[in-house]
């Protein structure tokens, strides 16, 4: 409940404040957002599985973001930034899909 509320508050705050992304953050933010989404879906699945733990959620959320950003940074340094970013997005996308599938089974029993 609080998580959902927080999400809404964040979106509204973003719409109201109209933030501009700082230049140094621009390469990492999209990947970080996708990674965070993955963590959120994972958390939602854990809730439905009855194994949700605040600590696990927080740690996985933050570590997802950090690792994703780190990979993009590493890719940029190695000159394969766009390819590695694509790879990260693909992997996270697969995870999100599988989590979404698990959530679907819980909710729709199918």
């Amino acid at each position, binding site marked *: 409940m609080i998580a959902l509320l927080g999400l809404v508050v964040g979106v509204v705050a973003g719409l109201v404040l109209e933030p501009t992304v700082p230049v140094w953050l621009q390469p990492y933010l999209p990947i970080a957002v996708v990674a*965070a989404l993955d963590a959120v879906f994972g958390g939602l699945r854990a809730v439905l599985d009855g194994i949700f733990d605040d600590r696990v959620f927080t740690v996985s959320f933050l570590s997802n973001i950090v690792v994703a950003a780190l990979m993009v940074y590493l890719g940029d340094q190695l000159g394969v930034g766009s390819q590695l970013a694509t790879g990260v997005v693909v992997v996270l996308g697969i995870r999100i899909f599988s989590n979404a599938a698990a959530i679907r089974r819980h909710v729709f029993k199918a």
Partner: protein
Amino acid sequence: MVDEQTHGAASGTGRRRLRAAMRPGLSRGHLLAGLLCAVLGFALVAQVRQTQNATIGALRQGELVALLQNVTDQSARLDAQARQLEQQLTELQSGSDRAVVAEQVARERLDVYAVLAGTRAASGPGIQLDITDPGRVVSAATVLDTVQELRGAGAEAIQVGGQNGAAVRVVVDTAFLDDPAGRGVEVDGRVLIPPYRVVAIGDAASLHRALAIPGGILETLQTRQASGRVIEQQSIMVSAQHDPKASRYARAAEPAATP
């Protein structure tokens, strides 16, 4: 398949758990999760906005390089075009300048030729030679000698006149004949009756000297019972004009191409 079975069994409790999670319950962990979700929402919106009004700041290095290349190419193209147009402009301007200069040169040349051909009155420094010939001893040959002497001394325009102001411009094809009736000298078909007045434009001192040299015209005239008198003038007018006949045969040829 086994997974499917277990999930199917657990699905009944899944919704209950979801509903349970929707109940507001305050704990530090929940608050932290909510905060993280808020951050996520904020970042999501920021990123979406950033993508929607994507400026070049959001582009990757490769794209920027390509963009820069495009702009550079375009700039080079426009530069080349500008240079070409400037060159054309310069050519056109110098072309019109050349036309003006050519016209001016042509006009000046026309003036020179008009004086040379005797189709226009000429003025300038020169001399006036008055020849009195009471005994009708001055022949056409003497007049011709006078003209030749003046030409040799650099006279640029000459006219020979007789009584009553009759005058003939001396040009390249002027002919001097003794009048058969003995009245005087026939110049270009006009009979001139003494006293004669020859007007020549040129360096007055040179012309005077040419006529006054020992054995020259003035001395010749004196030996023949005639007399000549030279007056140098700062400005004198050769007003008689020659009426050129159009040539029947000769035509101006195109300037031959220089090899």
